[in-house]
């Protein structure tokens, strides 16, 4: 049985888990994880990496939902795609800004046109444009189909960004997980990072559910 969107709540109970997990993640980043030899600014990493992870996860959900939109012609999947793309853009912004602040602390510059930074910025532009594309296509069904094709083609930039630090010599630090030589973390740092990744993932699920319900309600009231 499908419940009336107007009778639902925006967030489910997972938003409370996300709130607690995010506070614990802060404690893990500041109290549990030891200070790195590179200084205090390294602690930015504990929220920067999970932001990027959630952005990629959200774009992956978007591309899966977009494929389903084309295969099933279902607006349910379109609601999921638009919700996930918006959240992915938010977390991609957070990753870009926190990375830029770390860059200022570590390299004394806010931005360099390095392969990882540039490809991440391209991903951000693609998914920010996705929202604009949707706003400017009048018919809902046409908008859903155009946006689905755009999201699938645009997703090619996501694995490129993931591989950028593995394929090219970049100024960005090497990958700490699955990074091969030059990567790796001290166990306590790795535990803190994995906890933060978990907390951000729970937050993503809570936001996705809320945004999806909002999208369904918006369509029901139109």
């Amino acid at each position, binding site marked *: 049985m499908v419940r009336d969107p107007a009778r639902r709540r925006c967030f489910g109970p997972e938003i409370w888990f996300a709130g607690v997990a995010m506070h614990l993640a802060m404690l893990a980043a500041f109290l549990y994880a030891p200070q790195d030899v590179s200084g*205090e600014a390294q602690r930015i990493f504990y929220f920067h990496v999970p932001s990027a992870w959630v952005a990629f996860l959200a774009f992956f959900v978007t591309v899966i939902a977009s494929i389903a939109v084309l295969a099933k012609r279902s607006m349910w999947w379109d609601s999921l795609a638009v919700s996930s793309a918006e959240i992915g853009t938010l977390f991609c912004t957070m990753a870009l800004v*926190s990375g830029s602040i770390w860059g200022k602390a570590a390299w004394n510059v806010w931005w360099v046109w390095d392969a990882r930074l540039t490809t991440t910025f391209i991903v951000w532009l693609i998914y920010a444009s996705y929202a604009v594309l949707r706003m400017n296509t009048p018919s809902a069904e046409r908008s859903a189909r155009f946006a689905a094709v755009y999201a699938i083609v645009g997703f090619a930039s996501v694995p490129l960004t993931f591989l950028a630090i593995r394929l090219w010599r970049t100024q960005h630090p090497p990958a700490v997980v699955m990074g091969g030589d030059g990567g790796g973390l001290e166990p306590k740092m790795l535990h803190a990072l994995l906890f933060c990744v978990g907390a951000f993932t729970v937050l993503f699920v809570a936001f996705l559910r809320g945004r999806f319900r909002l999208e369904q309600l918006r369509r029901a009231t139109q």
Partner: protein
Amino acid sequence: MTYVIAAYGFIGAAISVYGLAMYARFRRLRAAAKDVSDE
């Protein structure tokens, strides 16, 4: 430490503002939907 506070402050503010804006928009739409169904 200033950079750490700036980065965590930005992320915290972005998450809070986005979550609250989503909740406010949902409540507004739900109120509008209820008004329509009550009429």
